[in-house]
């Protein structure tokens, strides 16, 4: 008797640039788990489906998974639109849903948070919410301003498309920025697609913004970085988890140099951590030679899969691998890391009333020196692209921030 598990990934759609590595991480991890004893001896029957980032297709697929005898025990999901659309359904069908959408309101399982969003009892994600990531960067920025000896109030600006994903942390960020003594400039919009964003950069420059949050995915963020470099806007950019990574740094070249962004894992590929051994093993699932470089999303995907797996382990011991049991499994330990991934996954805690897994956010800086032709592997090896950890920021689970 296998445990059916669904895995929605975007391999071919609009967010495939991050969807591919993340999905690969999840898929490899699940395959690895199956090869190494499965969930307490039972293997999972994983169906990985590329839904091309199209919500209707995700919904049909979900219906397939959630009905009949082969009803899945849990799902590894992906984007904002589909996660939001499925939130109600997974709650009703009691299927834990681990997604790549880190909107703050998904961290409120009861819907009783001060910002009164709809309850999301079965939604989980591994990583800081978009809001918490931004909070961490703002806290860092406040410090940074002091150390750099900036005079007066630093100016902060939120940038991104007028869409759920970039907007999710907007208010939370602006609120905190005010509290931290930033001068909050009016938000600047730019579309989710690459284009010419010189205009935006010129206004940034003119307004004298010091810190800017880039809320979009990599493609359009790159355009902004490049345009700002061209017009010579001196701004410290802060990316989001999906907005900056090794590939984006390569594409943006020197324009990406110095961008700060949250990384979900405690160590990145090639890093020095006890859990890295397993990560390397997992990577061999899809790369037998073991030579490929794995970007940050891949490693995060592994963690996402492993948290689910451990919760399943618990469920198996405690009444069977059902949705509600897996959910309970998530609540069993505090500040835990899946066995074997020590030093890779950040210790996290979920409770019945609070799905903010992480309260520490690792911030990295992209260092790009020189020409970025060639593959990411080479570039990282050569040190042309370097992701450098600059801080770990505590983002306390303040009750007033729950679900926000």
């Amino acid at each position, binding site marked *: 008797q296998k445990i059916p598990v669904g895995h929605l990934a975007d*391999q*071919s759609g609009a967010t495939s640039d991050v969807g*591919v590595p993340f999905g*690969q991480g999840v898929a490899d991890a699940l395959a690895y788990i199956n090869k190494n004893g499965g969930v307490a001896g039972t293997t999972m029957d994983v*169906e990985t*489906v*590329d839904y*091309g980032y*199209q*919500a*209707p*297709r995700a*919904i*049909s*697929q979900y*219906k*397939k998974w*959630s*009905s*009949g005898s082969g009803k899945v025990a849990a799902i590894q999901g992906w984007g*904002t*639109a589909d996660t*939001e*659309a499925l*939130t*109600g359904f997974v709650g*009703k069908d009691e299927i834990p849903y681990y997604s790549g959408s880190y*909107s703050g*309101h998904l961290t409120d399982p009861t819907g009783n948070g001060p910002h009164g*969003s*709809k309850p999301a009892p079965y939604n989980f994600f591994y990583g800081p919410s978009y809001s918490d990531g931004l909070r961490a960067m703002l806290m860092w920025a406040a410090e940074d301003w002091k150390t750099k000896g900036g005079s007066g109030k630093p100016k902060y600006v939120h940038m991104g498309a*007028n*869409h*759920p994903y970039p*907007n*999710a942390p907007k208010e939370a960020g602006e609120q905190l920025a005010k509290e931290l003594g930033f001068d909050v400039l009016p938000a600047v919009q730019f579309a989710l697609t690459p284009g010419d964003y010189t205009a935006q950069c010129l206004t940034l420059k003119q307004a004298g913004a010091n810190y800017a949050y880039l809320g979009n995915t990599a493609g359009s963020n790159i355009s902004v970085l490049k345009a700002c470099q061209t017009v010579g806007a001196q701004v410290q950019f802060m990316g989001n988890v999906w907005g900056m990574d090794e590939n984006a740094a390569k594409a943006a070249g020197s324009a990406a140099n110095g961008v700060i962004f949250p990384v979900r894992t405690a160590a990145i590929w090639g890093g020095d951590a006890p859990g890295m051994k397993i990560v390397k093993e997992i990577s061999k699932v*899809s790369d037998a030679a073991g030579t490929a470089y794995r970007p940050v999303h891949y490693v995060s995907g592994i963690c996402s899969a492993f948290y689910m797996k451990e919760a399943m382990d618990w469920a198996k011991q405690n009444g069977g691998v059902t949705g509600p049991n897996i959910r309970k499994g998530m609540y069993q330990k505090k500040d835990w890391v899946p066995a074997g991934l020590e030093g890779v996954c950040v210790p996290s805690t979920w409770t019945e009333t609070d799905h903010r897994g992480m309260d520490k956010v690792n911030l990295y800086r992209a260092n790009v020196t020189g020409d970025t032709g060639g593959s990411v592997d080479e570039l990282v090896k050569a040190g042309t692209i370097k992701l450098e950890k600059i801080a770990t920021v505590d983002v306390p689970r303040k009750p007033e921030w729950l679900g926000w």
Partner: protein
Amino acid sequence: MANISLIPCGDFKTRYAADTTIFPTKTSRNFAILGVALLLLCPAFMDRYWLNLCIQIGYLGIAALGLNILVGFTGQISIGHAAFFGFGAFSSAWLSNSFGIPVALAIPLAGVMTTAVGMLFGIPAARLKGLYLAIATLAAQYILQDFFSRADWFTGGTAGTIAEPFSLFGYAFDTDESFFYVVLVYVVVMYILATNLMRSRDGRALVAVRDHYLSAEIMGINLTKYRTMSFGISSFYAGIGGALYAHYLQFVSVEGFTILFSIQFLGMIIIGGLGSIMGSLMGTAFMVLLPEVMQAITTALSGTAIDAALNLREAIAFLREMAIGLVIILFLVFEPDGLAHRWKQIKAYWKLYPFSH
């Protein structure tokens, strides 16, 4: 295109009434009734996956019919239909959330609200033609999308809004099995209404405007009125479809109503057959099922010898997308007039069998 209207031998009409029915023959009418009756049984033997697909085909089919009335029957291309669809979804959610209007009532009201918005954006139709109008509707698409993400009071802003499940007399239709019936009723009613519209005065006027607006005007048809009205009717259908969508998913977010979705709507009616009522439904089914079929093929393929031999892996996702594009292209190369046309030819063939000429 030539309209092949063939009636079986011996099937003579003795009254004009008999000549204006929806179904040309008794048999076809009985088949239609039988079909609906069979559909009623669907929830008993279909699983949620299939029901979900049927429901999708249902609400999208209603909206697609609206677009077909605009594009196929009146000849005004719109590439902003998804925005109207979205407007209907938000309206219905808003009506039931903010005013406690029962969902059953909110859906038609949302249709009416969308009609109003559709007419507003249809104003340029009085002056613009062809692609110029199409791009004006593209503007509507972007303007409405922008409005959705701003209007917190209405749409919940970019965070989106929840929508109550459909309920009637205290019974909530919140499962696929039950919601299927809601959609089915709407589809049947909306399709019958459209069929009636097209065989009465204003429907004919719309088609006349499409075929030759100059002579239509001289035949006494007020162009401005009918062009705008067409937008209104089309939006009404979009609104109803959108409202059903909202209460099915019980959540509405601005993300869903993009230009790509609008283009998909166009795809549905073109593949189904412009200016064909049933074609709208067939085209919708095609566009909804195509990715699913491709997915099924992909799933069946992965892990097999072929997969291993060609080392497809991730490539399979792209191959599937390419296949979707290719099927659309091939379909149109072989059937440029859409499914409805092919359907007619099949019917004609059987009626004339074995004399196909």
